[in-house]
């Protein structure tokens, strides 16, 4: 898939996603900001496996920045896209704090998982792919591992209150 085609589809998805989190025409503007950043700062990135996670990361930072600013000014629904700063993808103090809080919640939640889920998550965090995990855990097929992981992730998400992030 060509880069332009990927970016076109990305824009559609980001607009739809942002529209479910932001009001008005902010979603359209946010998607445009993401694409501008990809074009200006990451023009050398053209592979699907890189473009999608990068665009998701940028979009998330933009949404979080927008929320923080809106909450500070009490203008959550009235913020203009021109006031939103483009994230430089470097962790700022607020982002670091949010990550710290999220990590603490995660640590509490994973401790409540069952043996298999904890073992599966440990192997994932140690860098194993699903094929390696299958061999390590003696699963009959890789689909079995996918299923285990799907259930474990669902359980972990429930233990986290339904969302990875601490606010909303």
């Amino acid at each position, binding site marked *: 898939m060509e880069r332009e085609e990927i970016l076109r589809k990305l824009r559609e*998805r980001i607009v739809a996603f942002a529209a479910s989190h932001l009001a008005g025409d902010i979603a359209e503007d946010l998607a445009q900001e993401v694409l501008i950043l990809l074009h200006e700062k990451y023009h050398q990135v053209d592979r699907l496996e890189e473009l999608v996670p990068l665009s998701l*990361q940028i979009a998330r930072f933009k949404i979080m920045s927008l929320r923080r600013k809106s909450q500070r000014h009490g203008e959550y629904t009235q913020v203009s896209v021109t006031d939103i700063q483009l994230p430089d993808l470097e962790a700022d103090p607020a982002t670091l704090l949010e990550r710290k809080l999220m990590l603490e919640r995660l640590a509490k939640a994973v*401790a409540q998982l069952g043996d298999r889920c904890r073992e599966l998550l440990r192997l*994932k*965090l140690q860098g194993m792919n699903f094929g390696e995990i299958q061999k390590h855990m003696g699963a009959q097929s890789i689909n079995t591992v*996918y299923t285990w992981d*799907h259930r474990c992730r669902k359980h972990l998400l429930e233990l986290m209150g339904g*969302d990875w992030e601490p606010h909303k």
Partner: protein
Amino acid sequence: MSRDEIQKLLGGYATGTLTEAEQRDLFAAALEDQELFDALAKEQALHDVLREPAARRQLIEALGPPREPFGVRVWQWLRRPAGIAMTAGLAVTLIIGAIVLRKPQPAARPETIVADATLRQAPLPETAPAPKPVQARSAVIRRPKLKVAVQEEAAPVPAPPPPAAPALPPAPVAVAQFAPPPVLPAATVSRASAAGSPSSVSPFTYSLLVGQPDGTYSPVAAGAALRAGDSVRLQVTPGSSGFLYLFRHSESGWRMITGQPVEQSVSYQLPSTGAVESIQPAQIQLLLVLSSQGTTLGDIDLLASGADSKAKATVRRFAPGLMAARAPAPVSPPPAVLKIGLEFH
């Protein structure tokens, strides 16, 4: 990949578990599927946290000590008292089950092979009239799944057949039943016995002795017939040591005339005192039983009925005039039974 399968890849995105191929599948699907894209976008928060090695280490610590491999966990469980008890119980159950399963099953209906043996008259002195051939009753062999070839006259003595299945009532017996008994040529019998040494594989060989005026017993002359008032004894040479019994049939059933321990290949006269007699023309049924044990002979009627029902034996003439009852030779030999018919004219 189906949508459901793609959904299952979501869990690998945040932790960086996906291979390049899996990532391509997931991202390509997400570009076409808004719901999947939204789910992927929500995973981004976790993805961003887990990108940091320090955060990964912290989570790994929160997960507790790693789970032991399956084999190690089994070994640890086995070392617990409860595990030992359960394992021992399971082992005992398996052993008992194996023993029960290895018990021989009741034999299927055995094949029956009927061999009609014609007892030919032995050569007689020229002066004697040529006797007619005697048609013997069927000698029947019942054994499970085993066929016995009926060999030609004067064939070498075959090895004893294998032991019969234990579930066959009554216990395997050797029966030779001849009819009509009175025509049984005593002379033939005696000559056969004299000519042939007791076979090591035959339960016994026997000949008929008839009382003489001087009180001794001598073999019945060839072609001679028994007469009312004759005293008859059997000269028996057992093929193995054990207990030898002689029964006579009467209206009340089988009555033991004598019984004694015997040694292999030693000749005995039965009865040792007295004789089988009939003061008038009659047919007398005798039952000769050789048992390896003196106390477990069992039901004589059953043994005799086993003979009547053509139980288990093969009857041959191995040499002119020699009749031998051949019984199976199992590890614990069953009683060998020979039914003899005498007719006093």
